[in-house]
């Protein structure tokens, strides 16, 4: 069974640009989560999607947004990139809310 897949693996952008990160959940999983992990720090909750709807979001500015498609894959968009957005962005999926979350390998976003 394929795990959670994320693309791209690495992404280099400059300040002010926009970034799009993609995530494909495990087959059968309807919930997708996005987390930000800055270097040496813990996991900061960004967004939770379930059945195409945004269920909850963390304390991040509106320039962090996303969506979930009918096939349950998801996209995270970050507009007006700032230097402090440099981090590993992890996507996870689960069968439903409050079920074990399975993580992808992440997208390393670097802002120059």
């Amino acid at each position, binding site marked *: 069974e394929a795990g959670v897949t994320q693309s791209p693996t690495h992404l280099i952008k400059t300040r002010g640009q926009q970034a799009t990160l993609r995530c494909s959940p495990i087959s059968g999983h309807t919930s997708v*989560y996005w987390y930000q992990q800055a270097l040496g720090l813990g*996991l*900061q909750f960004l967004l939770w999607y379930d059945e195409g709807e945004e269920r909850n979001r963390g304390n991040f500015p509106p320039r962090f947004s996303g969506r979930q498609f009918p096939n349950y894959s998801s996209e995270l968009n970050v507009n007006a990139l700032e230097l402090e957005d440099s981090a590993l962005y*992890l996507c996870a999926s689960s069968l439903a809310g409050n079920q*074990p979350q399975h*993580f*992808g390998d992440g997208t390393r976003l670097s802002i120059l």
Partner: protein
Amino acid sequence: QQPVQSPQAVILREGEDAVINCSSSKALYSVHWYRQKHGEAPVFLMILLKGGEQKGHEKISASFNEKKQQSSLYLTASQLSYSGTYFCGSSEIYNQGGKLIFGQGTELSVKP
């Protein structure tokens, strides 16, 4: 409010035991435990959904005291493969469990 993990770091010899604690100032619906090795994605260990519940996974077990709003992870007869950073993630009742707030992590090093 981020749960607080203790200790922040621990060094063990192979075969020794360890306990990692996770405390929250808010009422909890569930607690998840994950392990992340350097450069890898977090891996799910276990989820505790009920107060007073205790679960086991090989030589790793956990307890969840709903009244005290805390969970503990027990690692017995540690192996080299147990090295990594351990995160607890908590969900609050009103969030329906999908939004996990993670602690800052506990770095565990097991030496031969």
